[in-house]
């Protein structure tokens, strides 16, 4: 049976095909409006009975041309766009971009700002993992997990709100550090979260880790062999779940990660269950990192780099000195001219390696802005994982990659 091609379209999908005596193949379209595809992912599945023969993920329904926009905006103007790529972990996206620009310009933020950046990045990692856990468990059938996870995520969003005024699209990091002082009471909020969260995480663990239904749905499902994980360029928990020890915070430390003591969880079997354990442990390690940052952080000191070429001048002196007022005016109206050159800066995002490649021709806009988002590369492994799996496992496989379509489509 051949389906008529839609007017104007070019694709003809053979819906049903006889491949032998009593054997038929069926093409099933899943998405883009499907609650368990985490956004607008469309997957064209070829089935034989309930077994998956072939998978073709079709993406781009949320494509906004962020890279093109980046090439037409000044360096300081692009930070808000990074929020909107992976909107559940906006501070991490800000961080990757800001570090890339700082590397291009050859500057670095003061120590205290670096510690606060790490705290916000790790809080963001926990928030992102909570969204992942809630939706992943919801897909598999544990409805209450999503309610619990979003409850704790609320506390983190409150911290973000106190810190920068926004909850979701934070636009938090700035070139050179933070231009405003840390709000009063923020440290107490973080301390309270650190105190409260381990008990809540134990709740999730109690509900899922030994749960026979959860184990039946996840263990031995979606196994990625280590060689395949490397060849597919997987990063984050997808790679570490398969037993490969690659965490950019350890392998190529940035900010102050080389001074912090934390461990990188590694899976052994490379299945959905291992990736669940890896992410759960990453949340515990993130708490350790935040604890150490609060203890090690210098109590006072500058938060913003005092530098005249690439950094916005401090607000106080802008209102007092003519030079800083002029600098401020030029920085806002014209932007700064970055050095000629190209940089690739990768950070460990909650989903894997988030890389920003900037090619600068010496003007005030990047000549080429490239976002290497982790979930775009990770999603490519879905056909490999789904080969021979059951139809009901597809939602578990999509959930385990941890995708956000804003980041996949850019």
């Amino acid at each position, binding site marked *: 049976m051949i389906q008529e091609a839609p007017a104007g379209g070019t694709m003809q999908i053979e819906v049903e095909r006889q491949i032998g005596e009593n054997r038929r193949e069926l093409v099933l379209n899943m998405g883009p409006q499907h609650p368990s595809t985490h956004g607008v992912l469309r997957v064209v599945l070829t089935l034989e009975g309930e077994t998956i023969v072939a998978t073709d993920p079709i*993406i*781009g329904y949320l*494509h906004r*041309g962020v*890279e*093109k926009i980046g*090439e*037409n905006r*000044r360096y300081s103007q692009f930070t808000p766009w990074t929020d909107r790529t992976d909107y559940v972990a906006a501070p991490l996206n800000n961080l990757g971009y800001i570090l890339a620009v700082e*590397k291009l*310009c*050859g*500057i*670095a933020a*003061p120590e205290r700002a670096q510690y606060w950046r790490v705290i916000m990045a790790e809080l963001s990692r926990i928030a992102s993992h909570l969204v992942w856990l809630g939706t992943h468990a919801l897909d598999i059938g544990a409805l209450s997990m999503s309610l619990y996870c979003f409850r704790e995520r609320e506390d983190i969003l409150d911290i973000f709100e106190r810190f920068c005024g926004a909850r979701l699209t934070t636009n938090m990091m700035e070139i050179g550090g933070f231009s405003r002082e840390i709000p009063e009471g923020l440290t107490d909020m973080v301390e309270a979260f650190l105190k409260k969260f381990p008990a809540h995480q134990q709740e999730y663990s*109690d509900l899922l*880790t030994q749960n026979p239904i959860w184990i039946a749905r996840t263990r031995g499902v979606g196994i990625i062999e280590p060689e*395949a994980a*490397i*060849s*597919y*360029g*997987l990063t984050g928990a997808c790679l570490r779940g398969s*037993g490969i*020890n*690659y965490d950019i915070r350890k*392998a*190529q430390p940035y900010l102050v990660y080389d001074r912090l003591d934390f*461990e990188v*969880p*590694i*899976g*052994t079997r490379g299945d959905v269950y291992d990736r669940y*354990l890896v992410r759960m*442990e990453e949340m515990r390690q993130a708490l350790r990192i935040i604890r150490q940052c609060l203890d090690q952080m210098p109590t006072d000191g500058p938060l913003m*780099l*005092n*530098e*005249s*070429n690439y950094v916005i001048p401090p607000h106080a002196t802008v209102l007092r000195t003519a030079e800083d007022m002029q*600098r401020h005016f030029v920085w806002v109206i014209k932007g700064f001219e970055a050095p000629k*050159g*190209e*940089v*690739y800066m*990768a950070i460990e995002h909650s989903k894997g390696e988030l890389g920003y*490649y900037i090619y600068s*021709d010496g*003007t*005030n806009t990047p*000549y*080429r802005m*490239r976002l*290497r988002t982790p979930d*775009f*590369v990770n*999603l*490519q492994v879905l056909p*490999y994982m789904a080969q021979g799996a059951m139809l009901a496992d597809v939602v578990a496989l999509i959930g385990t990659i941890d995708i956000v379509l804003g980041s996949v489509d*850019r």
Partner: protein
Amino acid sequence: MSQNPAPDAGTPPDAQETTQLPALDTQVAAELAPVIEPATDQTGVQEINPVWVYSGYWGPLDEAQHPAIIGLRAQFGDAIEEVTFFRDEVTVRVRTEQLAEICTFLRDTPDLKYQMVSDLTAVDMLNLRSEPRFDVVVTLYSIPRRWRLRLKAGVREDQPCPTLTTVYAAAGWLERECYDMFGIVFAGHPDLRRMLLAEDWDEGHPLRKDYPMRGYKQYVQPGFTGAAPRIRETPREGA
């Protein structure tokens, strides 16, 4: 049940190849690092804070000491056209026809093992030079060495680029995206379709420099009669 912690999360892998990492050569690398001058202060009044610190994450910044460049020069000779350093990054410009062989060599040589492709993209050099128009940029990562390496290959508009899908599985979607955004054809790619744009998109390739920011066509919202608000764009010199 509540007393049981998660079973084997956090256990280090036993006898994994990746755990036996050679010691990082940062000492040598740091000695070879260029001195980055602090940005000059225009007013001459303020004190400049410490600058960005050299990391050594791309290997030594010296052609004679970088094992990948030594190996490539010995194996491929003229195909290695240029080696450039910026910040701590190492960029090797290679002959386009031999890109796949060079990647295979980098992946399989025991003391290099650039087994992972971090990123594959292109740059449209339309405003910066005449020929070739595109640069295909491949960023590789070596898990044992913990180094990155960037390969660049110039591609003319009418010239196909050899595919890397035979070397790295990750190149499949990255090359499809590259074709979608720049129109670069990867010869030998098994499934070269549009990636992010619709498959019947007929307006060309949007990341080319001659593609207007807001597209070629004017899309009018149904029922909307007023003039569409336009964001002011920063014109680029020579664009």
